[in-house]
């Protein structure tokens, strides 16, 4: 299926729920094409196979979601199976100051409130995958946290991709009100989903003085693909943190964008990717500093083994007016096998002079001396390597403030390492 329109035809019978979906369909049917490796920002990631495949659509019956839950995590779960809201598995109890709604089910005032924000932050005009998502998402989560509310437990949006050759457009819209504080987990799990493709878009708006954390955990399964976009928009004096943990996925591409539109903001982004087999994991981040006096911090760490490929592209844009910006970016990589590859490009584009910006990037191996030292202390080679990798990724996992979530992430990073030992 070499033709874009043929590819789109398989989704065209889906009903458009909102006006923005009609607009996006017009955009993607006309001039907008899917990126190829000739596009600078898709240089290392080939998506042709994704947008030339035939997909099927069904929502299988799932008996229990216990296997997909984060062990020991106390959170309010919102569950979607293949992009459709599952009332059965979602927690529906009401928490003071928070509204959690399925987009499809939103009505009246709530719907109006949603339409004020929906598709206002993400770029569905020039980015084909965003437009694809906007065109065809079937449902999504719409979460608002009221002014001055501080959430005691995180909200976990669990998306299960179940069955072979599914194409799911996942949509989240989160608005954190003034001076409110909240944690969100976007958990992607897979179930017998060979050849499936998840295309997720999250819009996160943090209003004045708000504080939002979003943890993206990608565990779609070894034979499926995931293209993810997160757009964070920050108002004055707000804080945000996005942590991206990629566990499985044959082809993973993450686009994380921050638009810093008010003064006094802090934006933090962290990520870990441990890749193995023939995995391809690509993280693109973009921080757009539009106004003065803001800080951004970025730390991404990767360990590549087997024949896997890691890609990192971080871009910091400091506009003319954004004086007194402090922006720091760091990307560190370890290559564990002969045939592993890392392509990294930490970019700075700076038009203001009174700024402090830096980026750093390293590629290397496990330190031989450290390995030797640990071995003299009686650790086996594998145990020593594991310890070093644990320490390496510790800087990022330490940013996960929720204990249960951090335990799970550390657990599977270690496990991944053990699998490779064997």
């Amino acid at each position, binding site marked *: 299926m070499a033709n874009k329109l043929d590819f789109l035809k398989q989704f065209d019978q889906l009903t458009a729920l909102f006006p923005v979906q009609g607009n996006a369909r017009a955009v993607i049917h006309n001039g907008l094409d899917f990126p190829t490796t000739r596009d600078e920002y898709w240089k290392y990631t080939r998506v042709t196979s994704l947008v030339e495949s035939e997909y099927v659509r069904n929502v299988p019956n799932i008996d229990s979601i216990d296997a997909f839950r984060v062990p020991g995590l106390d959170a309010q779960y919102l569950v979607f199976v293949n992009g459709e809201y599952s009332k059965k598995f979602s927690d529906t109890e009401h928490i003071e100051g928070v509204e959690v709604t399925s987009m499809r089910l939103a009505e009246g005032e709530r719907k109006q409130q949603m339409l004020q924000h929906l598709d206002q932050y993400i770029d569905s005009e020039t980015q084909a995958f965003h437009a694809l998502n906007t065109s065809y998402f079937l449902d999504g989560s719409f979460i608002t946290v009221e002014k001055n509310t501080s959430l005691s437990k995180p909200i976990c949006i669990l998306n299960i991709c179940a069955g072979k050759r599914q194409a799911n457009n996942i949509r989240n819209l989160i608005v954190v009100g003034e001076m409110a504080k909240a944690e969100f987990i976007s958990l992607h799990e897979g179930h017998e989903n060979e050849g499936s493709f998840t295309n997720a878009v999250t819009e996160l708006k943090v209003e004045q003085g708000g504080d939002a954390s979003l943890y993206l955990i990608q565990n779609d399964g070894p034979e499926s693909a995931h293209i993810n976009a997160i757009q964070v928009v920050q108002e004055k004096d707000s804080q945000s943190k996005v942590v991206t943990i990629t566990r499985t996925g044959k082809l993973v591409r993450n686009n994380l964008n921050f638009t810093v539109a008010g003064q006094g903001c802090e934006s933090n982004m962290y990520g870990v990717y441990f890749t193995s087999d023939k995995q391809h994991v690509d993280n693109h981040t973009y921080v757009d500093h539009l106004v003065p006096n803001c800080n951004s911090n970025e730390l991404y760490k990767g360990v590549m083994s087997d024949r896997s490929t890691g890609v990192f592209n971080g871009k910091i844009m400091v506009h003319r007016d954004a004086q007194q910006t402090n922006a720091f970016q760091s990307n560190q990589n370890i290559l564990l096998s002969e045939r592993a590859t890392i*392509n990294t490009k*930490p*970019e*700075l584009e700076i038009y203001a002079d*009174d700024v402090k910006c830096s980026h750093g990037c*390293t590629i290397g191996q496990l330190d031989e001396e450290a390995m030797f030292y640990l071995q003299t202390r009686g650790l086996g080679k594998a145990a020593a390597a594991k310890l070093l990798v644990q320490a390496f990724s510790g800087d990022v996992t330490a940013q996960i403030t929720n204990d249960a979530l951090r335990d799970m992430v550390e657990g599977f990073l270690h496990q991944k390492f053990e699998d490779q030992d064997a």
Partner: protein
Amino acid sequence: MAYTEEELAKDLKQQKYEFGFVSNFASDKAPKGLNEDIIRLISAKKNEPEWMLEYRLKAFKGWQEMIEPTWAHVHYPQVDFQDIYYYSAPKTKKKLNSLDEVDPELKSMYDRLGISTEEQKRLVGVAVDVVIDSVSVETSFKEKLGELGIIFCSFSEAVQEHPELVKKYLGTVVPSNDNFYAALNAAVFTDGSFCYIPKGVRCPMELSTYFRINEAQTGQFERTLVVADQGSSVSYLEGCTAPQRDENQLHAAVVELIALDDAEIKYSTVQNWYPGNEEGKGGIYNFVTKRGMCEGKNSKISWTQVETGSAITWKYPSCILKGDNSIGEFYSVAVTNNYQQADTGTKMVHIGKNTKSTIISKGISAGKSNNSYRGLVKVLPKASNARNFSQCDSLLLGSECGAHTFPYIEAQNSTSKIEHEATTSKIGEDQIFYCLQRGIDQEKAVSLIVNGYAKEVLNKLPMEFAIEAQKLLSISLEGSVG
């Protein structure tokens, strides 16, 4: 030969581009435009052998199918390639043995450039091959070098006298279809320098070429080929200037360096083409392809550049580290002021085992200019134990300029070690305050701090060049502070 404060003060008074004068000597020009006939004409004028003409025509064919690259972070009106004179030579060209035979006007031009050959002759150790509007006019110290078997001559002379060497190496590092401007150069290049250092010879003096664009609406397309045979070493200097002109002139050069086993080439450039005036009018478009091939084991290529001129710069001196244990180095200071735009950096391609590369890039932007570093470090699967260290810093002077970094790092070998770091900042107010408090005025303080910032690179330049480069830094940044 320390550069004193008085000298700096004197230089600072000269507000304008120092080398902006036009020399009026008759020149021999081909009609405007580019087609096969012009290429045949150039080739015939130079009395070139058939294979050379074929090489040009093949490149021209390739060029016609290429499109002008637009990926660089620079903006400029499209160049009309049919509105350029592709051949222009001073009419006085003849073999010269003594300076007395030189056209007096030509000679006075050299004097004003501060590279007077007389002075150079006294300053032992520098041989100059001067290229004016694409034709090499004069080669000094040739006989002396000849005794050692070193060939250092203009490119057209090399085609006549050493065709076997030219044929063997031309286009091996930068193929004629490498990129748009390299193809254009291969089709129409008129002259340049050729240098061959035989086995085991250490070149006893610095070799130097001076480029200068004189004629209006001419493009300069020179070609440099430096071959260092086994165990030899050479240090090569290149300086560039152009007179002040309102229209934009095109400079698309190609430099190829080849280092065989145990050979070492050090290539230094001070580029001071006319940058355009304060409103961004005029100036040179400098679209240059420079690449070095570390062909042999233990070979080394080192690029040092100080870039202060040109309206638009598009230049990436690169090293292909093919031989085992070979070393590539890139040291650069790029200064942009007013409306200048620079997109410059390097490529280090690690192919052989135990190859090492170092990149130190210092960008300084002032006025309304934009300065970008764009670099590639690539480690191929067989390049075990490859090592790279990159540092690219940017300094911003003024709130209307921009500094950008686009480093590409691609590693395909697990034994490679790569480090990259970059910072962007302005001159600290405390640093300026300290200088002011010691009685050093603002402008001098900036000059002092900038020179300190760029010192790591300036230190790599041969001495005469280092002094010139320091002066250039100060001049280029005049009026950008306060």
